């Protein structure tokens, strides 16, 4: 039997309101499912997870007093600690670095990361200052901004001398770009 011509598209378009609503609604719903699952998993980093480094108080043993130059110039020290990286837990790996220098025999610690946009700040021996090679921010030895685009001084880190010679630093990272230091959490 020969098939009859269907209604014109326009006529078809006027009828079956519910069917069309159903198609649009359910069609959207089931198409959203895989995206929903994907986005849920993608947002995983925003879920709070234990992590961080060092013992309970956040202090990490970095070096000894004797290793810091006595002339007051800063020296760079690697911060070594256990690190959780997604499924891995590494023991004793470098997680960052600090500049240490002695001020009247007392150690001071500065984070090596530029508070502007996170480059590694160099210590320039000749000029005896800190210099960020990315956007040319210039810091004095105490970390304060000499000139440049950085919104704040270099980040000072809490320091603690234990057992007379051990230098412990509370190592943490700060969000770049702000005028005051906000710890990364």
């Amino acid at each position: 039997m020969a098939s009859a011509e269907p209604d014109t598209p326009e006529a078809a378009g006027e009828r079956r309101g519910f069917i069309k609503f159903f198609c649009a609604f359910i069609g959207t719903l089931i198409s959203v499912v895989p995206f929903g699952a994907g986005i849920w998993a993608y947002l995983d980093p925003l879920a709070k997870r234990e992590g961080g480094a060092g013992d309970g108080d956040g202090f990490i043993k970095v070096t000894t007093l004797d290793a810091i130059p006595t002339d007051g110039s800063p020296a760079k020290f690697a911060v070594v600690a256990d690190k959780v990286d997604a499924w891995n837990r590494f023991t004793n790996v470098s997680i960052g670095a600090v500049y240490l220098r002695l001020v009247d025999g007392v150690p001071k610690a500065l984070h090596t990361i530029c508070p502007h946009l996170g480059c590694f700040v160099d210590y320039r021996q000749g000029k005896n200052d800190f210099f960020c090679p990315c956007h040319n921010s210039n810091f004095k030895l105490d970390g304060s901004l000499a000139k440049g685009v950085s919104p704040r001084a270099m980040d000072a880190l809490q320091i603690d001398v234990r057992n007379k010679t051990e230098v412990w630093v509370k190592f943490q990272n700060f969000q770049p770009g702000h005028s005051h230091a906000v710890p990364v959490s």
Partner: protein
Amino acid sequence: MKSLLDWIDHRTGIRSLTREALFENIPGGSRWRYVWGSTLTFTIFIQFVTGVFLWMGYSASSGDAWESVNYIQNEMTGGWLLRGIHHWTAQLMPVLLLLHLMQVVIDGAYKAPREVNYWFGVLLLLLVLALSLTGYLLPWDQKGFWATRVATNLMNLVPFAGPEMQKLVIGGTEYGHHTLTRFFALHAGVLPGLLVLLVVGHIYLFRRHGITPAEPVIKRDAYFWPDQVFKDVVACLAVTVAVLGFVLWYHGAHLGAPADPSEPFSAARPDWYFLFLFEFLKLPFFAGENEVWGAIYIPGMAVGLICLMPFIGRWNLGHVFNVGIIFVFLGGAGALTYLAKQEDVAGENSANYLKAVLDDSRDAHRVTALAKAKGIESTALSLLKSDPKTQGARLFAQHCSSCHRYDGHDGLAVELAKADTLGQLEKRAGLTSRFFSGDAVHPDWLVRKSGTQNEWHTVRAILQAKTEGPFDVIAAAKPEEAPDAPDLKGFASRQWIRNLLDPDNYISARYFGGTTHKDGDMYKKFLNRKVRKYDAAEMKMLDAIAIALSAEAELPGQAAADQADAALIRQGIQYLEDNIGCIDCHAFGEPDPDADGPDLTGYGSRRWIIDFVKNPEHEKFYPDNNDHMPAFGVKKILTDKEIGLIADWLRGDYFEPPAADPGH
């Protein structure tokens, strides 16, 4: 709004395109049988979306693949859902492909001028199977590892350049990083790219030629929108519901234990839709040099035949022949699939197969728990390999269980759910249960009355004897020979020592009944001659001695009890030294060269067990009366690390995750 649409339409012609897409004429009106192509397009869409998101969590290296998949499955929020959808959609696709192919062949939709489109379809079918095959390896678990090795080894059989092709596909001669990077590139890049091209071509040609109406056409024509779209959407909804059902039921998708080239996996099987090919190769006809026929020529000819159907269909009875062939293939594949499964759950090797599935699942859970608690320093496999709970048992089964037992088995039994009644046991041992149920029991496995230490009997024997339950059930075969050395479950625990000090127990098979020690001084001069005549007060001393001696082991599971009973333990030591005369033959507290029984100092401690296993003939233990126990350390049968694993396992000295695990 309208002017914006006008603006866009003017530049893209989007309206006429939409109109064309929606108002395609369907001769004879919409039908349910036309939905398969749409459901397949929908599943491909799901796989693309979930695949890209999985990609964001996956790491294609042999030291990270399992680890990252485990992380997705068990640590990431929603990761199990994402992976589950990808996995179960893949499981469903072969079914939809088959239905689509059958609909096309039965309706004769392959006939001129639609041949090319039909071939596109066949290519798409093969592409999807290739995606399944490559995806199966990516989690780098035992199942995927061993099953895919079989698949790539078959490439060896390809005429002319087989071995070279195999080398290229796996990126060398051995499975490793490059196998994964190559498979991943195929799975997430090359094959999906080809798939998109072919799907676009497939749909374009389909629209060009229009639908092939299923005969007879009795209804009036209709447009694609909304009539057919409605049916398509309902079918896609059914697909989604089915997939989500599986995902929720299985909480994602199963991940086996990490791939281990040194550990056999008797349950390595390809995914279920390849089982027919797997079984096909087991046919005796394809033995030896004939294998290439089963693996390559015949499947190749079958695909060739399917491709030739448009031409065959031109002949008078060609179409009937084609439809017949599809059903013959389907019937054959179905029968082979059934045979494969039947052999696995009820064949000669079925106890092994089912046990391997359980072992793999146990190892997988174990390493997941370890990874969660400790993190993975190098690889998940090395984490598993240094775990006493699983590896100590393995080593015990291999090296100790020919003489010793562990609770009446070889150490590797997997504890199953109890069976409350005989009827329940019978049902779980039945074929239906073994085919479909997770708590199936093989008739060769072992049961005993719940709560007893009785000997284990096979399920088969119990079902014949019709003993009433409830039963403890373990997945383990009955050891072939009777034990001839002590059962070491609970070694050095209070109960274990107290039982040893009972004369009848001492000469039972559970202790020294199978050894020469049953005729030794401990039995003859002490247990038999003295202990049998002990009065209640002396028995109490023995109880205290058992507790004191057990404290020497410092068993982790007994730490609280040992601490609580400190006074009793001191008392027990006093009895041991002064009243009962243990130190006449045993050293205690200090070396005693004249002692001819084992040193009781630190009895059952880690150090003590390790020293004993290393050399039972050491003067501290059995210098003259060792009965057959090999010096595992001296003879270098076991390394120190391995002996340590056995000791830790026996002592229950290993990490246990907190009982409540909200993730599952």
